[in-house]
């Protein structure tokens, strides 16, 4: 079986090396194969046993921090929760840095553009009250709260941003995660700047640049639905243009 050329007990793992100061090139490693191992385990094994200069990023290892996303056989995935056996293609594994972002080195992508766009989409809290006021009562079953809650489990891993072909073709596009955050805040009764949010997502590279291809929703590791959030923003901007208020 190709990729397992040292019997059944080793995998051939191709890792993309290089970064801002060196052209990217693939490098193959032999890694022990186990029944249960994640892609992050494999990358860590290479760094700890074969090449300590291999650069990658991780923190929690349990799918909460959003640090370890990489391209795995051409698909963006959270590597700490991705079992090698489920993603092997003809017995081989190819790991690279996230698409649509600059590469710092090897498997570590530069997340700056991703978070800059998060801010550009007004993805920050605009309070309705001060610390001296009572806490606003929120109905957890209300429609607005349900729409807001749908997106709050985003872990900022940038997998949707990496999967998005519109981001690939349009560097100004804010991307699914930032727009989903804007939609979450737009529906949050505790947020005071709905107009500012709609202004932020109506400009160059805003929600109207989305072609509804849906890779964000397909690849989100937390099963979130940025595609519907962006559709919600489009509807809200049109409604506002016709004089409708939320």
């Amino acid at each position, binding site marked *: 079986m190709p990729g397992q050329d040292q019997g059944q007990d080793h995998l051939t793992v191709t890792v993309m090396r290089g970064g801002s100061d060196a052209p990217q090139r693939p490098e193959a490693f032999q890694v022990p194969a186990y029944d249960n191992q994640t892609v992050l385990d494999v990358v860590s094994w290479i760094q700890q046993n074969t090449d300590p200069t291999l650069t990658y990023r991780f923190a929690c290892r349990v799918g909460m921090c959003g640090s370890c996303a990489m391209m795995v056989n051409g698909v963006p995935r959270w590597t700490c929760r991705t079992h090698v056996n489920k993603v092997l293609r003809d017995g081989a594994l190819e790991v690279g840095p996230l698409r649509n972002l600059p590469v710092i080195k090897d498997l570590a992508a530069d997340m700056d553009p991703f978070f800059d766009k998060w801010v550009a989409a007004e993805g920050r809290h605009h309070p309705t009250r001060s610390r001296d006021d009572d806490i606003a009562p929120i109905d957890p079953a209300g429609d607005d709260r349900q729409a807001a809650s749908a997106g709050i489990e985003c872990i900022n891993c940038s997998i949707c941003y990496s999967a998005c072909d519109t981001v690939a073709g*349009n560097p100004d596009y804010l991307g699914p995660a930032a727009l989903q955050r804007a939609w979450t805040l737009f529906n949050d009764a505790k947020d005071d700047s709905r107009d500012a949010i709609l202004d932020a997502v*109506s*400009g*160059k590279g805003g929600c*109207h*640049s989305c072609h509804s291809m849906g890779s964000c929703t397909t690849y989100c590791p937390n099963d979130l639905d940025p595609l519907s959030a962006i559709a919600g923003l489009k509807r809200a*901007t049109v409604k506002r243009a016709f004089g409708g208020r939320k």
Partner: protein
Amino acid sequence: MTEFRLYMAQRLSALVMAPFVLVHIGVMIYAIQGGLTAAEILGRTQGSVFWFAFYGLFVVAVSIHASIGLRTILGEWAGLRGGARDAVSALIGVGLFAMGATAVWAVTA
């Protein structure tokens, strides 16, 4: 807000075009059933305010809709940015309108 205005213009022009496309195709299929010469077609369209307004509006909607769509494609596929992209897509819009208006005038005037 320009992007939003273009988005609205493209959606609204699509809304206008939808019935035009259906009527256009429907009439073509119906009208040629018994065979129809160019002279017979021109006999029906020349001097007709209805067909002038119908295809005139159709051409306006197509010019708006197509040039905005091509502007996006020029940006994402051809890598054109800023003023160059706007200028090329505006030129395409004007070109489509000029060609369409010439054709409408030729068959309805």
